[in-house]
């Protein structure tokens, strides 16, 4: 009796270890690939914006400046770590970690292709909202702990901006939730595949528009980069940070961009699938792995980020708030009502 009992527990433990090992492996893969992506997102951004401004962008380090992110990383790693004398030290240390962790944790619920997701939880979308709001803590704590007026103003601006646009973003995705009938991101993608148009961006164009604008504001990117407005606040909430802590903020910001692009790809552009009428017309495309379609969508959205940054100037702060509260939120509410009515009648 006892012998079989032991055997069963041993295989159970083995299974458990296997599962933990697989999850750890997945985490390592996702983290490694994401961080590499983030590093090269900076290179890509500088290249794109450079060419849009009829410059060359990074070109000296390696072939066409291809090793520039690595050189930047090495530089940031060996830079002197300066902490202001009057800073609130524990919070000063903690803030970039909170920011980075909240950005990286969001990766766990993103399905990169069919079946590849670290945590397939049924509240994936809510989890993403929670994590992106948690990032605001890192920002506001860094602004407070730095004990500098620029940081503090940047932190305050970021807090109010993120909170305002969080609402608009959440409401813009409600339409998607209603159409998919689920908060699980994989289910949302599958629901889109069942949908005739293949992606929710077409019926949910209002929601998609609100989401795009809110995503720009949520990640503090131009034209809504008031928390780090260089001409007014030096660098905003991370003015007093240097060396690797600065790098953590930088990485966190680009990871947040990557996650926003992924949400856009998953919730509005069909994730790893392409519309059925395309695969019906060209069955050969079925052989292309899903990750390719996913990455193409994410990259397109990232490119849009850079494109807008190269085009638009910064909004005034009251304009930013007016857009958020007076246009985006009513628009998102209208979209929800419209989606609901259509769902009832059709």
């Amino acid at each position, binding site marked *: 009796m006892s012998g079989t009992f032991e055997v069963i527990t041993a295989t159970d433990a083995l299974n458990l270890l296997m599962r933990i090992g697989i999850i750890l492996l997945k985490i390592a893969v996702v983290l490694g690939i994401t961080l590499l992506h983030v590093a090269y997102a900076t290179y890509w951004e500088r290249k794109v914006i*450079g060419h*849009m401004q*009829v*410059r*060359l962008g990074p070109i000296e380090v390696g072939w066409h400046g291809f090793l520039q992110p690595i050189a930047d990383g090495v530089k940031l790693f060996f830079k002197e770590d300066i902490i202001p004398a009057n800073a609130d030290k524990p919070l000063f240390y903690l803030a970039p970690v909170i920011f980075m962790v909240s950005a990286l944790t969001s990766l766990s619920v993103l399905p990169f292709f069919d079946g590849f997701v670290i945590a397939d939880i049924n509240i994936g979308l809510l989890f993403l909202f929670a994590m992106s709001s948690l990032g605001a803590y890192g920002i506001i704590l860094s602004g407070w702990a730095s004990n500098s007026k620029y940081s503090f103003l940047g932190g305050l601006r970021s807090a109010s901006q993120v909170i305002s646009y969080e609402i608009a973003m959440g409401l813009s995705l409600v339409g998607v939730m209603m159409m998919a009938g689920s908060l699980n991101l994989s289910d949302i993608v599958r629901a889109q595949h069942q949908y005739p148009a293949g992606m929710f961006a077409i019926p949910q164009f209002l929601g998609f528009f609100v989401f795009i604008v809110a995503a720009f504001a949520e990640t503090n990117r131009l034209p809504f980069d008031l928390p780090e407005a260089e001409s007014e606040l030096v660098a905003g909430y991370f003015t007093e940070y240097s060396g690797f802590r600065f790098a953590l903020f930088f990485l966190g910001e680009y990871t947040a961009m990557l996650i926003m692009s992924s949400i856009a790809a998953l919730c509005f552009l069909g994730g790893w699938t392409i519309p059925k009428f395309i695969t019906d017309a060209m069955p050969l495309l079925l052989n292309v792995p899903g990750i390719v379609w996913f990455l193409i969508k994410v990259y397109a959205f990232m490119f849009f980020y850079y*494109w*807008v940054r190269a*085009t638009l100037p910064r909004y005034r702060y009251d304009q930013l708030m007016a857009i958020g509260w007076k246009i985006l939120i009513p628009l998102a509410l209208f979209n929800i009502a419209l989606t609901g009515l259509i769902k009832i009648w059709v």
Partner: protein
Amino acid sequence: MTGREFIKAIFFVEILKGLALTLKSMFTPAVTRRYPKVKRPVKPGFRGLHALAKDEDGRMKCVGCGLCGAYCPSKCIYIYTSDGEDHTKVVDRYEIDVLRCIYCGFCVEACPFGAITLSEHYEYSDYSREPFYMTKEKLLSNWDKYFAGEKGENYFKKFWRPLSEDFRTPEGQAMFKGIKNEK
């Protein structure tokens, strides 16, 4: 707000125009000049590092009259002369504090012998102040470096038209030619 303006506002026509412009400029070739590798050709009359001219025999043209130093607006030319054998004037030291020079070129225009020149050389940054204090020897070697051969000679004569070579008024310069319709 007219209907046209309303449609423009709703569909972000202006923003779309801007996006189209940036996308178009992305595919135009960059105008960047990669400086240390690709150098910009120096325009005629560029005023660079100083040099003291030598004549055909390799002697210094400067006679130590001190006009350059007198004209110099930033007073950065120091000339020390002494009586040589049979009362000829000997230039002992001719020094230019290059860091104080404003490269106006007045010294070149003032010199009646075409002895001080400004070369086309402009890449002489350094880590200390001493290399920027030009002594007579350094200035003379600058002549050998930057005015050797035909190019330097042409540059100097054509652009600066030293008074020692050419006393005519440049063409096109406004000048008094007598009263018009003079009886």
